[in-house]
């Protein structure tokens, strides 16, 4: 460390910290700006009938009801498919997995699954669910695709939540003749629940905001009614935003912003929900 005079060292510290502060403020401000801007510009066109009416005139008028419902179905489908498997796999990795090559391979697979681009999941869904399994471009194919994408997250969060449960509980339970599964089922899982829920909610939030994969495996620009079965095509909020923003000329600005607002509100409210679950659990444990 080169020692400069005290004054200039103080000065360089001041400058440096000012730069760091500006960077932080900038990021926070941009984030808040985006939220506020979308809220302000979108609020104008947002009303009850916008939320409850189907779109007309290729999205230039009417509402977004089918897209809302479609996104809701997608979140539900993703949750129902990815959560149970994520919890089971998380239990295996935290409670059963021996330290061997197979466990290492599983963990490596999870890390890599988390990094696979969403568009590649889309190609996977197209090849496997749409074509090979012949589900067609459908809600089911899209849910399965998004569930595959969510798997890495639900497994990881479940595993971490389970690993965070103190070892003493496991020993205490086994030492009075509970079986391993009983210990997990009645002692460990309940303790890990908040962490698991946090992961599940985040996974749902992601599924709600994802557009690249569903654009490939089944989201439709406009469908007249709501999907009646898992094999129907569907509308989804993010895809709807994409089309009104880039594919359809002459959509009123307000309408676009309102779609963005609804999408952002859905996604962020689930994010906030996850944070609340996490914080509440932390407070309880203390």
């Amino acid at each position, binding site marked *: 460390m080169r020692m400069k005079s005290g004054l200039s060292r103080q000065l360089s510290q001041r400058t440096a910290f000012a730069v760091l502060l500006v960077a932080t403020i900038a990021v926070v401000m941009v984030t808040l700006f985006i939220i506020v801007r979308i809220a302000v510009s979108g609020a104008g066109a947002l009303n009850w009938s916008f939320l409850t009416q189907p779109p007309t005139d290729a999205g230039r008028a009417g509402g977004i009801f089918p897209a809302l419902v479609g996104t809701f179905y997608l979140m539900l489908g993703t949750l129902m498919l990815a959560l149970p498997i994520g919890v089971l796999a998380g239990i295996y990795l935290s409670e059963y997995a*021996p330290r061997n090559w197979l466990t290492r391979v599983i963990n490596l697979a999870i890390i890599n699954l988390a990094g696979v681009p969403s568009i590649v999941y889309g190609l996977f869904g197209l090849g496997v669910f749409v074509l090979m399994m012949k589900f067609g471009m459908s809600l089911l194919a899209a849910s399965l695709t998004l569930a595959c994408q969510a798997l890495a997250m639900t497994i990881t969060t479940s595993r971490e939540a389970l690993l965070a449960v103190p070892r003493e509980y496991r020993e205490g339970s*086994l*030492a*009075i*003749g509970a079986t391993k599964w009983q210990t997990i089922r*009645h002692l460990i899982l309940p303790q890990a629940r908040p962490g698991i829920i946090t992961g599940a909610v985040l996974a749902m939030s992601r599924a709600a905001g994802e557009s690249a994969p569903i654009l490939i495996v089944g989201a439709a620009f406009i469908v007249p009614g709501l999907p009646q079965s898992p094999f129907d095509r569907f509308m989804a909020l993010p895809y709807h935003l994409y089309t009104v923003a880039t594919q359809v000329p002459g959509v009123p600005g307000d309408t676009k912003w309102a779609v963005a607002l609804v999408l952002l509100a859905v996604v962020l409210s689930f994010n906030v929900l996850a944070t609340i679950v996490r914080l509440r659990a932390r407070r309880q444990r203390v």
Partner: protein
Amino acid sequence: MTAASTVSRDRMPEHSTTKIRTEGVSLYYGAFQALRNITLDIPERAITAIIGPSGCGKSTFLRIFNRMNDLIPGARVEGTIQLEGIDIYDRCIDVVELRKRVGMVFQKPNPFPMSVFENVAFGPRRHGGNNRGELADIVEKSLRQAALWDEVKDKLDKSAFDLSGGQQQRLCIARVLAVEPQVILMDEPCSALDPVATLKIEDLMRQLSNSYTIVIVTHNMQQAARASDISAFLLMEPDRAGVLVECGPTSQLFTSPKDKRTEDYITGRFG
């Protein structure tokens, strides 16, 4: 161990008083040998204390009796450990059933994150009891046995974490009692407690020894001298493997130890 010798052991007259018998027991953590060739009889309905300096393998030895070491990857046991003449490391033994009969209390009180009632009811529930009335009876009986009933009878629905350390430890004992074991293993049950709570637990052990076989690991010489009937002294050899130096009635071991090393230890010359 041949079938013939097992049978002949069974007919030996002193068997009625020996609850657990270990013979030539060694334990390895991977390549590291933690215990060497320990042979010890643990009498029924009495308190056996295991003493020795830190790291000599007391906990390791204790955890052999309910096969808690099975949970540690790479741990390996050699020799014979018999509970009432049955080799508990035999292939046909059910570890879960074994642990119902041989319960364990740990050094740090480890109540479960649930109510006092549910803590005690945890074992019985897992073993098929679901009748609320029966459970309530079992819980009350166990808490009374653990000398905790009067202190907690009004807070059965409160979190177990709200109890004091000593109460928590007695709760853990009640939790073990609730599954009606035959043997209770205690690994330094008082090391996290103050003297008053410690005395309470010792009184409790005395009472329990009328109907249970108790094996306790302790660092505290006075505690061993006060509370146990039989004492076993473990020590590390230079290669850090624990061996049994001496074992006998507590009064004798503390007043006239046969081995020089025992004498050095109990008089506080090392350890």
